[in-house]
């Protein structure tokens, strides 16, 4: 509670300098932290509205990833069974415990079979996954868990000739809430792709629409 009082002066009394200054000193002490700061006991009900809240500092949308060029992933054995970065959003966020970093991305994908095998592809040769990462302390830390897609778009995928399908321009929306329990400084937000077998399909991604919202209060 941060209230201030003054010494009431009787009629016809000579007001001393100390007493004259006292209410101003009391006001100063009760507002600058000497004896208190302005708190809810100083304000009327409903004294605050949304205009009083500080606006967050932008931008929180990566221009480059918002309108990113088409890039080919897969069709490259080196990308088998590893996470390969498809989007990087450099940031400098000093997250406090129990803040929320809400992430979103919505890449536009085209998949194309480039199967060079004599036999048709099977499903395990044609799946890919997307997953969120944050760069914390210079290290890419996986947050959340992989979500999968299959490049075979028709057929049972086990037998037959169903590997020769191409999927044009589908959005792959993904979202996540990172809720740290300790103070965490994040220097980049990343999305990575993982292939069980990166040999037989190419996955073209563009216009990743990577964005974040940092909710503090």
């Amino acid at each position, binding site marked *: 509670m941060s*209230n*201030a009082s*003054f010494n009431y*002066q009787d009629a016809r*009394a*000579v*007001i001393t300098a100390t007493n004259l200054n006292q*209410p101003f000193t009391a*006001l100063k002490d*009760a507002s600058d932290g000497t004896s208190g700061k302005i708190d809810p006991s*100083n*304000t009327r009900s409903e*004294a*605050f509205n949304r*205009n*009083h*809240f*500080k606006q967050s500092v932008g931008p929180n949308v990566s221009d480059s990833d918002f309108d990113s060029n088409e890039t080919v992933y897969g069709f490259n054995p080196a990308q088998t*069974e590893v996470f390969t970065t498809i989007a990087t959003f450099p940031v400098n966020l000093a997250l406090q*415990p*129990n*803040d*929320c970093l*809400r992430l979103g991305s919505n890449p536009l994908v085209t998949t194309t079979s480039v199967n060079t095998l004599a036999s048709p592809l*099977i*499903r*395990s*040769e044609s*799946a890919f*996954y*997307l997953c969120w990462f944050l760069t914390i302390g210079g290290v890419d830390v996986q947050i*959340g*868990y*992989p*979500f*999968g*897609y*299959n490049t075979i*778009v*028709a*057929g*049972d*995928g*086990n*037998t*037959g000739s169903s590997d020769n399908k191409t999927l044009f321009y589908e959005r*792959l*929306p*993904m*979202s*996540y*809430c990172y*809720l740290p*329990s300790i103070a965490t400084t994040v220097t980049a937000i990343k999305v990575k792709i*993982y292939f*069980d*077998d990166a040999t037989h399909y190419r996955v073209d991604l563009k216009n990743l629409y990577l964005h974040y919202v940092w*909710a*503090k*209060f």
Partner: protein
Amino acid sequence: MSKTYSVGVHQDRDYATAKAFNQDASGFLAEFNGKLDAQQLPYETIDDSNMVANSRIAVDSRPDGSAQDGVGVIMATQSYFQVESTLNTFTWARYPAADVLGPPLATFSSQNNSWASGILSLSANITKGSFLRIPTSEGFLRGAAQIDVEYFFVSQEAAGFTGNFGAGWRWQFYVFVNDVMVSTTGEQPAGRRRTVNLPFAAPIASQDSVTIDVRWSATFDGAGTSPANIKLIEDANLRVFNCLLWARNQYR
């Protein structure tokens, strides 16, 4: 509106009278002691440092309350909740012989009547990622459910069979808030694996327990379903892999 005025205007060489002093001091201190209003407070100055610190709670992730794997962060103007499954190893030996992410969190065989007709709660089979029971304040509830699902079914080697992409084999996911459907994928064709993201939004009252439930249904009613015409393959199943469910409650 909170304002105060000086009642005693002092001139040079005046001395302060008790009456003027008492009225002026009482005036501005009375405002300070509980009457400060929006006019005294500059815009865009309040941030998290002025607020009560956020708190963290565990929330139910199963309808029967048997698990509290959901995380909630309660803030001054909003709250966030999230629950997620944790499938993270690519070691599931998949037919015919390759390792992929798995095993699935739930598998429903379309050969064995393994599910009842209707719209079913995914939380009956998945412990994390498809159900939240949360406290709310009056305002709006906004969120998304993300589900990794596949439904391959029948071999095209079945003579005359057309039950693949484009035929009548369907799955569908829904999000229910307090048993009211607020989002759905619509019927989706079988024939591939994909991840769906279901955004939802709904007005919400102040309640101790609001349930957000991901539900599903599936049918296989395409042409040529007579057993004689179907050559079943190894894994004629609806499979569900990782699930994620988050919600934001924006207070009014």
